[in-house]
Each structure stands twice: as structure tokens, then as C-alpha cells.
């Protein structure tokens, strides 16, 4: 079994290159802020950032100037309000112009799925009566050879790099996650390069004891980064809660570019890695975001010898 463990620094340095398309997925959960911060820290440039919901992580990355293009389906600070940095880039080209390529959620889901399945397109019942196809010529239609009306299609999405945060993996990248599964599996299968970031590194036996939970096989994984709390201030089911105070605070900080840059300086450029970040957050944060216990209960696969 190949050992694919790397530090976050080395994984980003080796696998994320200027000009590439990068998808950090995870729908409101499992958002790998640690990877986004490392991309900012390493001054990557001209990236195409792909995410259904850009969330704070892309707000920060776009404010830091790593991106020239954004592919997305919903621009919001979930449960709070706007993504001010993304809006500033779109509305005022601060810090730089940002091209956008916009879909609906199902459209993005379909694009990742077609990418993962190596299909030329994914058909979906959407976009009729919407202006979206007018502004995004990649949303098209095909005729139905069984006689019904034409149906909308979206093209496959195959990111250069997908970064997926999960509860656990073994050292060769066999990865298990539970909770909101979002589009992570499809994003991983669609990408040329996959970096998996986990809360826990486990023995291969732990994975093999519950094979139905292995959504991403090591076969498609290039690097495994063990980075506890790597999704903070987002959350990891069963490991920690969303740090909602930061989502609220960011709504204030991000309204102003100078203030935003000061934050980036203090929390990203100015520190070395995620361990320092958590140190700087203070000891109480871990306690504050710790959930109670809710065990899944046991099942048996049976031994067949």
C-alpha cells in the first residue's frame, strides 16, 4: 500500500500550480479552510476556483488575489448574508477582475457527475424560463430520442485538482466520510489530482471493517494530509461544530478590503500552518465547538470463510 501522506505545505506546493482549476468541495460542511489558507500563503495565482457555494473560504482566497475565474452556483455566507469579497471582485474588480461562470446547484451537481462518469454531458430538468443559459452558453439542450421535449444539459467538469476534507482515511487515501455527502465523491472522481485532508489517519483495517463507507478509494488519491481541525470555522460531522461566531465576524471584516487584508496578514501570511492557526484561535475554541456523542450503532458484515 503506497504511503501518500504529505504535509499541507508539501501537498499544495506539489499539486496546485498557477493557472489550474481547483475545486475545494463540501456543502456547508467539510470545507477545507486549511488548504485554502495554504494556497493563499503560497501565493498561487490565476486559479479557476470551482465550488457550488464559494463560502468564506473562496471569499478569502479571492480577496487574496489567487483567482481569475469563479465557477459556482450560490454566492452566500450561509445563514448570514453576502460574500463581500466576491461581490467586491465582481462589482468593482477589487483586488482584480474576476470572471464568473454560473450555474444552478443541480447544474453544478450534474457537471461534476458527468466529469466523474466520463460522460459528454449530464441531462437535467432545469433552466427553462431562466436567463442563466443566456449568460452561460455552456448550458445547452439535447433532443430526446424517445419523443418528449428537449432537455437541458451541462458539460462535464473535470477540475485539475480536487481537495476533499473528510473524517478519516488510511495512508494510501482510502477515505470515509459521513454526514452531508454533498458532491465530494463526484468532485474527487472528476478531478485529475485529488488531495484528501482528514481529521484522523487510521489503519487500513478500520477502513476495511466498513467498506460501504469508503466513498473515495486511494486509487484516485494523490496525497493524504492529516490536518485536525482543518475545516474550521466550517465543521466536520461528529468531530466539531461550525464556529458560527467567525461566520458572523467575517461578515464585518470582509466589508472592507483593507480590513480583509489585515485579517489575511494576521491569520494566514503571518503564521506558518494550521497548528499555529488553532493555537492562535485559543484553547477555548476546541471546547466551544465540540459536539456531544451520538454513536451510529453497530452493524455486522459477517465473516464468510
Amino acid at each position, binding site marked *: 500500500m503506497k504511503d501518500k501522506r504529505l504535509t499541507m505545505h508539501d501537498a499544495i506546493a506539489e499539486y496546485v500550480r498557477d493557472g489550474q482549476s481547483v475545486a475545494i468541495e463540501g*456543502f*456547508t*460542511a467539510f470545507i477545507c479552510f486549511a488548504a485554502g489558507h495554504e494556497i493563499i500563503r503560497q501565493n498561487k495565482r490565476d486559479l479557476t476556483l470551482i465550488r*457550488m*457555494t464559494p463560502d468564506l473560504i473562496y471569499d478569502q482566497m479571492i480577496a487574496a488575489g489567487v483567482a481569475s475565474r469563479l465557477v*459556482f*452556483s*450560490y*454566492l*452566500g455566507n*450561509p*445563514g448570514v448574508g*453576502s460574500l463581500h469579497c*466576491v*461581490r467586491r471582485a*465582481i*462589482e468593482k474588480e477589487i483586488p482584480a477582475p474576476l470572471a464568473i461562470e*454560473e*450555474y*444552478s*446547484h*443541480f*447544474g453544478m*451537481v*450534474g457537471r461534476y*457527475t458527468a466529469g466523474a462518469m466520463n460522460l459528454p454531458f449530464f441531462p*437535467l*430538468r*432545469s*433552466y*427553462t*424560463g*431562466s*436567463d*442563466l443559459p443566456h*449568460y452561460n452558453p455552456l448550458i445547452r439542450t439535447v433532443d430526446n430520442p424517445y419523443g*418528449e*421535449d428537449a432537455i437541458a444539459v451541462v458539460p462535464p467538469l473535470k477540475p485539475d485538482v480536487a481537495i476533499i476534507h473528510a473524517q478519516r482515511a488510511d495512508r494510501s487515501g482510502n477515505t470515509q466520510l*459521513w*454526514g*452531508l*455527502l*454533498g*458532491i465530494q*465523491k*463526484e468532485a474527487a472522481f472528476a478531478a485529475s489530482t485529488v488531495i484528501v485532508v482528514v481529521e484522523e489517519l487510521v489503519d487500513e483495517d478500520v477502513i476495511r471493517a466498513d467498506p460501504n463507507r469508503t466513498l473515495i478509494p486511494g486509487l484516485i488519491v494523490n496525497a493524504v494530509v492529516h490536518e485536525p481541525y482543518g475545516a474550521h470555522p466550517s*465543521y466536520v*460531522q461528529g468531530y466539531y*461544530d*461550525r464556529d*458560527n461566531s467567525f461566520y458572523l465576524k467575517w461578515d464585518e471584516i470582509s466589508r472592507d478590503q483593507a480590513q480583509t487584508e489585515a485579517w489575511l496578514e494576521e491569520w494566514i501570511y503571518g503564521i506558518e500552518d494550521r497548528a499555529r492557526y488553532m493555537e492562535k484561535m485559543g484553547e477555548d475554541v476546541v471546547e466551544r465547538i465540540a*459536539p456531544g456523542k*451520538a454513536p451510529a450503532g453497530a452493524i455486522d458484515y459477517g465473516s464468510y470463510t
Partner: protein
Amino acid sequence: MTEQAYTPSEMMIVSAARALAGVQTVFVGVGQPNIACNLARHTVAPDLELIYESGVYGAQPARLPLSIGDPTLVTGATSVIPMIDLFALYLQGGLVDVALLGGAQIDRYGNLNTTVIGDYQSPKVRLPGSGGACEIAINARSVYIIMRLSSRAFVEKLDFYTSPGHMEGGDARARANLPGAGPQLVITDMALFDFNNPDCEMQLVSLHPGVTLEAVTEAVGWEVRKAETLAETELPAAEELHLIRYVLDPDGMYR
């Protein structure tokens, strides 16, 4: 009693909850719609199942969820699934009876804009965009819209068509072969509207207590159609208000 008997937000929540009587599945977001659905579960629709875009079916949140991806929605849910399954099997599969939607702008046919104010290419205000709204508006069996009534929101012409309502009105949806029936109800802080006429045009059906017809017609950006008989919305009942204030939203986040 100097305290107001109920807030406009509570009136909206109560109206939405009542409209969910007998409904089996509702596609819901956080905030007011979430409270409305849970109020319905406690009152008119005890078997109502909540479906969240994030991939959750049958949530039983132990706290008021902060977002549609709150981990409290996952723990103890009936089923938690990939987003492709949520959109393709549940929504496109026709299992969503009612979806609750909102928007920055709405027109007389219930078409919604959540994308942009001004021009798409050089926007005045960039809004969140579709999220799942476009396909929800197309595939849900029925759509209820929850929005505050104002002339900035209820406009003659949308700056951007994000999600179809009744499109150009009449049988436009049927001609376009859209699976769902489209908007059935618009719930606002001043009045209720439906689309029960051959044009499928939004029409005023009920004024909230204390709201004048004039105030409503002024707040709608086109000459608003009125149903033949205009009702007064029933007041929130004491039980409904009690549930909202002490059970469903004890911190008053959506008061």
C-alpha cells in the same frame, strides 16, 4: 397591552404554516420557512417531512439550525444522502410536494430574481444566484413564495429571470412541459396572493388585519389584480404564537 400582539414576521410564519395543511413533503431553507414548517408539524401537518437541499430527509434538529447544512440536521435524521440523489431522485423524481422560495424580485407571474440587481455583466448588486431555486421552481409539485411586500421587490419586470414562476402566464408552464405546477401562493407581511385565474397572474386574496387595500396596491409595482372576494387573514392563534416564541424560536432570531 402595549406589546404588539404579533409581528409581521410571525404573521408570515403562521400563514405559511397553515398553507402546509395536509402536505407530506416540503423542501425548505432556514429562517422563517424552517420555523413555518416546524410550526406546521406541531399544528396542521403532523406528518410533514422536511427535505433540505443539503441532502437531508426527515430532519429532527435538536436546535434551531443556523444554515441548511447545520450538523444538527444530520444527527437523528431519517436519511442523509448525496446531493445528486437529493436533486435527481427526490426533487426531479417528483417527491417534493411543496417548496418554499423567496427572492429579491418577483413579477406578476411569480417569476423570481435572486441573481442580480442591474445588469448581469456589470451589476449594481450581485445577489447569491440560483442555488437550487431554478430547478426547485421547475420540479416541485407546488411552490409557495415568502417575501416582504415592497415596490422594490414586486416589480413590473425582473432585472434577471433566475427561476420560473408561471413564465408569461396562462398555460406557459404546461406548454414548456415543466413538471411542477409552479407558484400557488405568495405570503407577505401585508397580504396573501394566489394565482387562481386563467392567466395564472398573481392576485390579492387576503389582507392581513389592519392592512389597507391601498397600502398593498401601492407596494406592488404593477396594477395588482384582486380576487372576487377579498378576505381578511385570520389572526395568529395564541397556540401558534406560543409555539413560535417558546418552542421553535426561543431566542427570537426570526421575530
